[in-house]
């Protein structure tokens, strides 16, 4: 157990961050190069103001017609995305690890807030999975990989919550927490989680086309 712990909390952390950061840079750079060669119109029509206008509307809860048409999903998806990004960065335990390892630190979330936000992520994943099973149109679009991705995102939060509350086998859960977190991080550039990387570009491009060429709104 001890060796395993050393492995996941040592070399694998480095590996996960290298794959995540390196992979993200690689994906973005190759995409940008390929776009330059094969889709030059993306550069030609890109318009910073309209791209920003569109991105802003879609990053604002209820800022687009479709967000307003789906209030429950909108609440869940915003709560989920905010939590899934903030908790890993601003959790006290994580901040302390950065402090210990590199002597750098930053603001951290109050413990109760982090607890709630973790639960939000877990229940949002259950909500998304349920939606995939219940809604006919979403079910048709769903493949097994969609459930694996949800499981991959939920895993570090479930195991983290478990370990933090010292439930049975929490030591094992702690190891699994680190491992699943590493897997998720490394998977971002290479799975549909890459929507995190591409969002500003796909949204910004259509926002530019709608705004600068078509003089219409796209939200």
């Amino acid at each position, binding site marked *: 157990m001890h060796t395993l712990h050393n492995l996941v909390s040592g070399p694998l952390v480095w590996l996960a961050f290298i794959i995540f950061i390196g992979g993200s840079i690689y994906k973005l750079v190759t*995409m*940008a190069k*390929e*776009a330059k*060669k*094969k*889709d030059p*119109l*993306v550069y*030609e*029509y890109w318009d910073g103001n309209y791209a920003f206008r*569109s991105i802003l509307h*879609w990053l604002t809860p209820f800022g*687009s*017609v*479709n967000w307003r*048409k*789906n209030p429950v*999903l909108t609440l869940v998806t915003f709560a989920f995305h905010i939590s899934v990004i903030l908790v890993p960065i601003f959790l006290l335990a994580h901040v302390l690890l950065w402090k210990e390892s590199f002597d750098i630190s930053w603001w951290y979330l109050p413990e109760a807030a982090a607890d709630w936000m973790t639960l939000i992520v877990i229940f949002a994943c259950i909500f998304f999975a349920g939606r*995939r099973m219940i*809604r*006919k*149109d*979403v*079910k*048709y*679009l*769903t*493949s*097994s990989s*969609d*459930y694996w991705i949800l499981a991959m995102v939920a895993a570090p939060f479930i195991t983290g919550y478990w370990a933090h509350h010292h439930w049975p086998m929490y030591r094992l859960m702690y190891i699994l927490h680190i491992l699943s977190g590493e897997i998720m991080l490394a998977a971002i550039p290479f799975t*549909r989680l*890459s*929507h995190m990387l*591409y*969002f500003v*570009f*796909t*949204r*910004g*491009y*259509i*926002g530019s086309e*709608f705004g600068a*060429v*078509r*003089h*219409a*709104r*796209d*939200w």
Partner: protein
Amino acid sequence: MSEPASKIESQKEIKQIKDMGLDQGVARLTPEKIEKVVNEVLENETGARLKAYVESCVHCGLCSDACHYYVSRKDPIFSPAAKVKQTLWEILEKKGKVSPEFIRRAAEVAYTECNLCRRCAMYCPFGIDVAYMMLTMRRICHKLGVTPQYIQDTAHSHSATMNQMWVKEDEWVDTLFWQEEEAQEEIPGLRIPVEKEGADIMYSVIGPEPKFRAQLIYQAAVILNAAGADWTMPATPGWDNSDMAMYTGDNEMMARLKKEHFETATRLKVKRIVMGECGHAFRSVYDMGNRALGWKMPPVPVVHALEYYYELFRAGRIKVAKKFEKPVTLHDPCNVIRGRGLHEMTRYVVNKTCENFIEMTPNREHNYCCCAGGGVINCGPPFRDKRVVSNSVKADQISATTKKGVEVVIAPCHNCHGGLEDIIHHFGLGVELKFLGDIIYEVMEKPE
């Protein structure tokens, strides 16, 4: 969990509509040919954009409610993302190793179950452009020789005559003279100036105008004449601004057509092109055809009829004798509203010309498509019933306005006109359908 698209198709027992173009095209295919053509298109004509769209789509289904097919039929196969699943997802996943039967279904999806209206791009959080992906699928089908017969016939006409309707050169000029003569009976001295070099405006129309709706040329002449415009129409090929090649996937022909159109305007030394009330033609001249030729924006400024009317009313160049009395509603055509943002200008003109204007809901950029655009109506009678029953939401939308007293629907686009005509008839909505030009012609002060 997930089921392959092909399996769900057979479960649903989608009735395969017979179409000579699709059926005979597919009969000529071999898996090797499919793989070769698919990979050629993907390799040479697509890139980062397609990849980013496919990799970013989280299969959330938020696009479903954007699509009039889905909203009308509630069948998951009509969700925009589902249309990509039945076409490019599978093709990309299998690297082009798909069967002729798969291509048959994919062609039907791309040509007849999507109007390329781009409403879903406004409902997808990532702004994924499904219309672009359906056009990519059509491109593959075009290169495979699997295109619906009727629309392919119009594309053939484009390549043989440079117009959509097999109109011969003398027939075209004859039609202009004929409409001029007709109009002169009402307004003596009215001219349709043909080949007037150096005029301010080249007025261009779509092939079906001289073929089926010649009175629209008459009406436009009356409006342009009353406004005192310095205008002309070409006597040569290049007069037709329409473009079904853009919708079959024949991008080379699309470029040739637009080249002819722009060169005709340049030859006539006009300052700009004003075009009639057509949506797809505007898309071709303003958005897709110019790009195919390498022009970021059209080399000759292009003004759609709706914008031109606005200009005329704003400047007081057209006077209204008596406003149109029957209550009207307005159908916002995708290609000039989502495609050019002319919604407020159109409303300005409607309010100037009509006593009682009642909005349909949703409206402006969010209006539902007519289900005829994107070349779907041009796929002809075999697919007519499907497109009409697949747009019951449009019938509901119009019917809600008739409850408020609406008697006339203004549809300022040829394809919308055709589509709505069928919907109004099929669902027994009992409303009249008009172009905005019809209304202007009816209410304007005409010179003696």
